[in-house]
């Protein structure tokens, strides 16, 4: 499917959507949103790009295969999950927080890292699925 209009639009929409997805991720603790929706948004950004440019272009352009985000994300989530256990012998998932809040994001704590992990896994998994499917379709 080739449409120059769509191509151009997707070029400009991609960063917008990505930004928006990160926005959704970071403020999830305060307003609707969070890692899932954020991750799904980010995937949609790339999917759109792939629709416009073809999957190969999108893959080239992403530098890394999206699958790599999966173990990285898992590792981040798992780390923030077990960090309290390993560092302080507290139950897994116990929230660890920095004392002072940071502008925009708010309080920085293990929950945030956890959500970032979720975000990455969602991006990685969704894109891996969609790209594999569309690859086998062409």
């Amino acid at each position, binding site marked *: 499917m080739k449409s120059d209009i769509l191509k151009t639009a997707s070029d400009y929409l991609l960063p917008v959507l990505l930004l928006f997805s990160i926005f959704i991720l970071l403020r999830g603790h305060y*307003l609707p949103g969070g890692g*899932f929706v954020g991750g799904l948004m980010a995937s949609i950004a790339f999917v759109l790009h792939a629709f416009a440019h073809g999957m190969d272009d999108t893959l080239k352009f992403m530098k890394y295969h999206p699958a790599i985000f999966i173990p990285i994300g898992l590792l981040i989530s798992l780390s923030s999950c077990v960090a309290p256990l390993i560092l302080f012998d507290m139950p897994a998932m116990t929230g660890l927080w920095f004392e002072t809040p940071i502008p925009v994001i708010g309080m920085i704590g293990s929950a945030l890292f956890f959500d970032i992990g979720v975000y990455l896994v*969602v991006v990685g*998994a969704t894109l891996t699925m969609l790209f594999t499917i569309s690859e*086998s379709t062409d």
Partner: protein
Amino acid sequence: MELILVLIIGVLYGAGIYMMLRRSMVKLLIGIMLLGNGANILIFLLGRITKGKPPVIPDGASVFTEMYADPVPQALILTAIVISFGVQAFAIVLLKRVYALIDSDDLDDLNTPEDI
């Protein structure tokens, strides 16, 4: 207002099963999706519904100052939605692969005779 959701639940469960009883693989999958939606709404409803009071603590307050919707079912459904998405994505692909093998959407073609 609950009755509305009850009706929807009934329709989704019924239609889901009906679709699962068809011969087409795609219908089968759609049936599963309908059921999944039905289950989500069921959880949502049975956690009791409230209009227009999202469980977001307003700025400046540290607890809710007025009535709010039960956040637990919402969290559960969110989890369930994402899980079903993963599972259904896999199921869709499975269907694609099976079709590629048997060249048909007909579930009745799934039986290599000895499987009976």
